[in-house]
């Protein structure tokens, strides 16, 4: 009887222990999800930034007037002239009011509204060739919606190459001519913000920055730090390797060897032990040895974080042929350049994807006046004093083989209704892209930093020194070699 009670007691204790473990694990999960600092510090700031009233931790500092501009205001109609990047002096902006939370910077991620009410899906039409590919409607087994699909294969593939229905809606970018699943292992992509949103800490260190990510973050006058991802650019660049095996008719060869050697040894020498006949007395110290001061001093210095600070040498005034677009030159969409812009973005529909940049900030939907799925979309927002940064990315070519050089161009514009500062653009290159040294250019004064990332490539970081007025923008260029 006592044994049974002992077993019951053990069962009860084990059950309570299991419940406690489950409760602790749930609590730890909740704590990890709610802790804003749970992300690993992937990208520490390139240097300790000077404390700016732009940051929330200076909310209690007295208000200071705006410093005089060091240069003419950036005109949106033209790119700033060739200039050498000056040593960066972070903007000292006085916040208009004291901030409620001076310790932690509030990060707002600019993301499109996903779902039926999202602005990205309004008026979406799939570019199907009606003459050669009759369009039919059918219900989708996966999502239950009605999709339009081509009854015939696209002209670039045989009839058996039909890879599935062309989903109409919020599908991400696909290669031209391929419907349904497309081979992602034949493409290298760069841009956007992959799952695991990028967040910026109060010290401007960045968390959640994955490979291929391209984002910009900036500070507002009310102390917020907003993250804006760029569009995604995909380049066709397959790379091959091989696995080799050499075999023969004789698969295994075994060589026998002797198991051991028996060689008895005999005594070769005899040693006699001799008793000690004398002893030596230990002598006392006869004098004092003086202490001498060290003649050399070795300084011990704590390890510090070292970054490769590189300044942009110059900025070329002219534009490359693939950059000759109104979007790059003036930051404005031109209706007549739809096709060319869609061609160089390579990810035209990504502008309306989750990673697009022209969608609502701060979890507030914007009223849409006109819309389209093209990258030349014109949205009309009732911002109400909201800060906003648009960043777009294009590549010079759609396909590349190992050894080819690709020119990337980033265009960023302040399309909000207030001035923003501490604008930082970060591009985390994927493993297959190798940055060409000294190829980074920026039309605005910026400090350029390149540091290694986890993909054994580089993370490129431009810190714009001056605040960005309303309507102003800039262009960033750099080159990469396809590995």
């Amino acid at each position: 009887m006592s044994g049974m009670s002992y077993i019951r007691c053990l069962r009860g204790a084990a059950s309570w222990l299991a419940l406690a473990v489950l409760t602790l694990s749930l609590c730890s999960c909740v704590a990890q999800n709610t802790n804003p600092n749970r992300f690993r510090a992937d990208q520490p700031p390139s240097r300790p930034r000077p404390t700016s009233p732009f940051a929330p931790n200076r909310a209690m500092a007295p208000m200071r007037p705006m410093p005089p501009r060091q240069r003419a205001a950036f005109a949106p109609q033209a790119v700033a002239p060739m200039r050498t990047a000056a040593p960066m002096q972070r903007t000292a902006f006085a916040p208009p009011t004291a901030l409620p939370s001076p310790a932690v910077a509030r990060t707002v991620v600019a993301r499109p509204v996903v779902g039926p009410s999202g602005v990205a899906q309004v008026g979406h039409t799939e570019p199907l060739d009606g003459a050669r590919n009759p369009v039919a409607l059918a219900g989708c087994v996966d999502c239950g919606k009605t999709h339009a699909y081509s009854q015939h294969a696209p002209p670039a593939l045989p009839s058996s190459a039909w890879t599935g229905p062309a989903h109409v809606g919020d599908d991400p970018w696909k290669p031209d001519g391929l419907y349904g699943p497309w081979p992602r292992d034949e493409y290298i992509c760069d841009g956007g913000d992959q799952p695991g949103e990028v967040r910026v800490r109060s010290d401007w260190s960045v968390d959640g920055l994955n490979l291929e990510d391209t984002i910009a973050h900036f500070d507002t006058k009310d102390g917020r730090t907003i993250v804006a991802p760029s569009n995604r650019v995909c380049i066709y660049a397959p790379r091959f390797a091989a696995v080799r095996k050499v075999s023969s008719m004789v698969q295994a060869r075994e060589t026998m060897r002797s198991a051991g050697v028996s060689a008895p040894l005999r005594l070769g020498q005899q040693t006699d032990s001799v008793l000690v006949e004398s002893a030596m007395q230990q002598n006392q110290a006869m004098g004092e040895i003086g202490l001498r001061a060290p003649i050399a001093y070795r300084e011990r210095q704590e390890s510090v974080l070292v970054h490769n600070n590189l300044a942009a040498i110059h900025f070329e005034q002219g534009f490359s042929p693939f950059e000759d677009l109104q979007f790059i030159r003036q930051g404005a969409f031109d209706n007549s350049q739809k096709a060319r812009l869609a061609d160089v973005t390579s990810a035209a529909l990504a502008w309306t994807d989750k990673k697009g940049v022209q969608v609502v900030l701060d979890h507030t939907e914007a009223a849409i006046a006109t819309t389209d799925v093209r990258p030349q979309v014109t949205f009309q927002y009732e911002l109400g004093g909201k800060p906003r940064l648009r960043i777009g990315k294009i590549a010079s070519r759609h396909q590349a083989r190992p050894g080819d050089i690709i020119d990337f161009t980033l265009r960023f514009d302040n399309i909000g209704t207030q001035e923003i500062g501490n604008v930082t653009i970060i591009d985390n290159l994927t493993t297959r892209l190798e940055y060409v040294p000294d190829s980074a250019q920026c039309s605005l004064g910026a400090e350029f930093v390149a540091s290694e990332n986890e993909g054994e490539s580089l993370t490129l970081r431009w810190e714009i020194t001056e605040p960005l007025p309303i309507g102003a923008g800039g262009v960033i260029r750099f080159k990469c070699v396809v590995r």
Partner: protein
Amino acid sequence: MAPHSLSLLLACLLVSSAVAQSPVHFPQSAYLPPGAVGSHQLLRGGPLRGYFQPVQIRVPDGAAVSLVIQQQFTDPAPHATTAGMLIGQVYRVKVMGIPGRPGEEVFPTIEVINRLHPPKGYEARFPIPIELTTEELLLALQGRFVTRVIYLENPSDAFPMQENPKRQRYFEVHQEDDPLQVADRLGRPMAILRMGSRQPNTRGPSDQFVFGSPPLLLFPDEYSQPAGPITPQQQGRSVPRLPFDGPLAPQLATPREAVRR
């Protein structure tokens, strides 16, 4: 209630450990007869049947390679040749002029088991590279059997080094490993090269030896250059289109002047 929660916790732990150690079954093997892997790929469906996948065959300096069209070997092409090959078919290749072994020839086979999806018009610019090194050719002449599985590298697990366009990177596997399975773990297997010391009959290559001489497409020599920047000749010239409307008849191929061995 409490014993149930304990058993539930233990069950979750067991399931998670089982998922972490779930074995992968590979139905295909590089030891299957030539053509078996590609045929199984065709049975799986998809845009594979009837597609001529460009393949670039490279040989060492001084050597030459020739393909088979209608049971006859074509003119030997020095350095490299590019041809479109059907998936699931086996193509016999002749390599001659091996450095240090004049007069001797090796007859490897190539089996394409998957395809690429390049942008329209760039099919010939992105062939599957198959490199025959001098070392492997000499091993084949010594009676060894060389199996090389060419796979497409996954960009997310890419090797962080600059690629040498004239030298294909490869991994040597142990005797107990299957190169096809190793390649499947590293990426997407695209082609299998098998090379031994088998020679044709003295009366010429038989139909069985050349696997029925399946149809192929020959590309101009300018597309047989190793990977690199676009040449000025290719920059302003349209790339020949592949016939995507279905399987090609053998007579549609435009062989060079065929020579009887």
